[in-house]
């Protein structure tokens, strides 16, 4: 598909913004897109999507949170919104679905944001960066951009739960294959696990730590069993939880201390030859990985 000149708005959300814990996911995604010739425009003065937490306190309010961002994207005349964080992706998708399908919500929302009641709102699309890379950019463009091939490095893709469920539309809700495609395009060997879309526990890490640790233990074990040499994630919270669990679980799991857990966009960025500062990847992890890559073009 010809994506040159394609314009999207970009919703970083709290986690992937420059102050968030997932800022490196944000940096690396933008760097990868830039390398592919795609520029995105950040929605100005965006607000938190409310994820699944704010709804517990105030349902109506949670739709308003999403709606404000949607309205801004429409005002920018960039109705296709690129999102990285799965929680934002889910809750913005939900807001959009409800506005389009639920009259009660629509009436409430359009009182404040009338633009969402206009025909233009039917052009709104929430796009996850995985979806965009696989279905719009595609195999050829990604392969062409590769400068270091992974040459069979065993990569485990951990999707977490909310990228593919329940409002998502671009891949199977339980057994997605998009990340595996990207991994193989850059030369990696995808490692399968039946737990790849099992939940990491999310925010429950703060309230029910022991329970969540047990869940993540299983996830680690299944990847270790398959011989994963690197785990890639696509969610700031999964990422944090995996890292935190790795320290907490300690000897309960037999995960190599050096096993890199990075964002998939950082991995793609490395193979594109993008600098490690731009990707926000630590030097020793980068070196560890680059060691196993094969140079195919000058970086």
């Amino acid at each position, binding site marked *: 598909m010809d994506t040159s000149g394609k314009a999207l708005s970009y919703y970083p959300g709290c986690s992937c913004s420059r102050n968030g814990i997932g800022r490196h996911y944000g940096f690396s995604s933008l760097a990868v897109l830039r390398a592919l010739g795609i520029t995105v425009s950040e929605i100005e003065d965006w*607000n*938190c999507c409310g994820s*699944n937490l704010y709804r517990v306190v105030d349902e109506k309010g949670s739709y308003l*949170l999403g709606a404000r961002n949607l309205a801004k994207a429409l005002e920018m005349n960039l109705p296709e919104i690129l999102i990285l964080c799965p929680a934002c992706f889910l809750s913005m998708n939900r807001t959009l679905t409800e506005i389009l399908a639920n009259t009660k919500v629509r009436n409430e929302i359009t009182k404040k944001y009338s633009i969402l009641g206009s025909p233009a709102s039917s052009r709104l699309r929430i796009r996850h960066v995985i979806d965009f890379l696989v279905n719009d950019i595609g195999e050829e463009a990604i392969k062409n951009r590769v400068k270091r091939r992974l040459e069979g490095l065993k990569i485990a893709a951990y999707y977490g*739960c909310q990228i593919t469920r329940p409002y998502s539309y671009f891949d199977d*809700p339980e057994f997605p294959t998009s990340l595996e495609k990207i991994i193989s395009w850059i030369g990696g060997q995808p490692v399968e696990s039946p737990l790849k879309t099992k*939940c990491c526990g999310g925010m429950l890490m703060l309230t029910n730590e022991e*329970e969540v640790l047990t869940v993540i233990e299983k996830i680690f074990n299944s990847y270790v069993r398959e011989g994963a040499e690197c785990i890639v994630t696509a969610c700031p919270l999964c990422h944090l939880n995996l890292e935190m669990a790795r*320290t907490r679980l300690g000897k309960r799991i037999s995960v190599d201390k050096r096993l890199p857990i990075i964002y998939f966009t950082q991995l793609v960025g490395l193979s594109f030859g993008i600098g490690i500062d731009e990707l926000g990847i630590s030097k020793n992890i980068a070196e560890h990985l680059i060691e196993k890559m094969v140079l195919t073009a000058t970086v």
Partner: protein
Amino acid sequence: MVSQNNHLIEDSYAIRAAIEKCIQCGTCSASCPLNNYMDYTPRQVVLMVREGFIHEALKTKTIWLCSTCYLCAVRCPAKINIGEFMTALKRSALKNGYSNNQLYPKLMETYAEYINKYGRISEPRLMIKFSLKTSPFKLLKMIPFSMKLLREGTLSFSLEKIQNIEEIKI
């Protein structure tokens, strides 16, 4: 067995769908990654609500253990969005002062405070404030991991406020 307690529960689409359509197959329960920590299975909670044991349903641990991963929702043969069902129960429980989990409501509260004040959140600040409210000692435990994040440059405490906070208020 119509309950006196129906007023405790909100009349939302997810709740109604669960009451009207559930065939009690247990797919949701067996799909749940946290099921063995629950006092009642998700299917049983649906049944409680259907049969009018609202009080009991709102008191379960189950609803607070739901992390809304929606695996149940995409598998349910009756196409019930059980994740949203659990969220609706949490909401009803919070509103009516039920809680058998002290931590989760506090987390919600803290989260909402940030949003209502700034329109955005900062995870590190959220964690600290939440821990101060609940168990300050936990903060000590977090220090080593926080140092790691700091080294990697992923820890920041700054939080930008949106321009007009009224825009997110009804």
